[in-house]
């Protein structure tokens, strides 16, 4: 019905998803449209968008580090370390992006000083994540699944923030970060397939 309505309104490339969300089995994002966006309230500049993103990645890195300490099995610990390292690379990428977009050099210290504490990608605290996902971290597969749901949540947050960004360069930066989260998600998907086979 929605698809028909749109096609009558000048939209000529409409794709209807048969079965809708009930049939969707890939990663989902949850939470209301506005949740987590308060973090990006001041996205009036590209600097601001990137600084918030940087601190979200830092929050996630801390989360993976704390999980690495908690788990008992070696493969699980190694995987959490690996995920943590990926977040460090992602932070480096955000710093590069800052320089690409503003022409100004930046060091980790500048962004570290602007940390948003306690908050993960997706705009949730670690505890909120644990409660929402009720994850079991026993197997490598559980951990990849957890990481994938976090990345999906992050992708969703960055895109929702980009929709609301008041500044065009800030919006572009957020879209670029969302695309990197998407690539990250695809990498985790491949890792999952390798683990299962």
């Amino acid at each position, binding site marked *: 019905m929605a698809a028909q309505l749109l096609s009558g309104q000048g939209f000529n490339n409409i794709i209807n998803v*048969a079965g809708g969300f009930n049939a969707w089995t890939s990663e989902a994002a949850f939470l209301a449209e506005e949740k987590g966006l308060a973090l990006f309230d001041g996205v009036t500049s590209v600097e601001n968008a990137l600084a918030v993103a940087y601190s979200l990645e830092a929050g996630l890195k801390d989360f993976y580090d704390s999980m690495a300490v908690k788990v008992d099995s070696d493969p699980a610990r190694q995987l959490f370390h690996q995920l943590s390292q990926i977040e460090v690379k992602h932070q480096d990428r955000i710093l590069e992006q800052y320089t690409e977009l503003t022409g100004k050099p930046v060091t980790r210290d500048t962004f570290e000083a602007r940390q948003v504490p306690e908050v993960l990608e997706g705009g949730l605290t670690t505890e909120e994540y644990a409660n929402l996902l009720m994850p079991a971290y026993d197997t490598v597969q559980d951990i990849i699944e957890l990481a994938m749901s976090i990345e999906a949540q992050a992708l969703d947050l960055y895109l929702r923030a980009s*929709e609301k960004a008041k500044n065009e360069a800030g919006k572009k930066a957020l879209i670029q970060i969302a695309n990197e989260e998407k690539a990250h998600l695809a990498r985790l998907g491949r890792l999952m397939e390798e683990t299962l086979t």
Partner: protein
Amino acid sequence: MNWRQFLTPVKSIDTNQARDYLAEKRVEDVTILDVRQPAEYEAGHIPGAVLAPLPELTDYLPRIDPTKPVMVY
């Protein structure tokens, strides 16, 4: 009277095809539109989907880029 003649053909794909389709696109190249109610959206949605509940869908149209593909569910 055949009502179908008034309906524009719309492409329909299943969720696996939708996942593969999205995997090939950059996030800014397709609009994902969730036309369910806000509570349903909150409980779970396709990452990156924009909420535009069916009863208010026409109010949201000016914000959607008609040159991009729009995936609806």
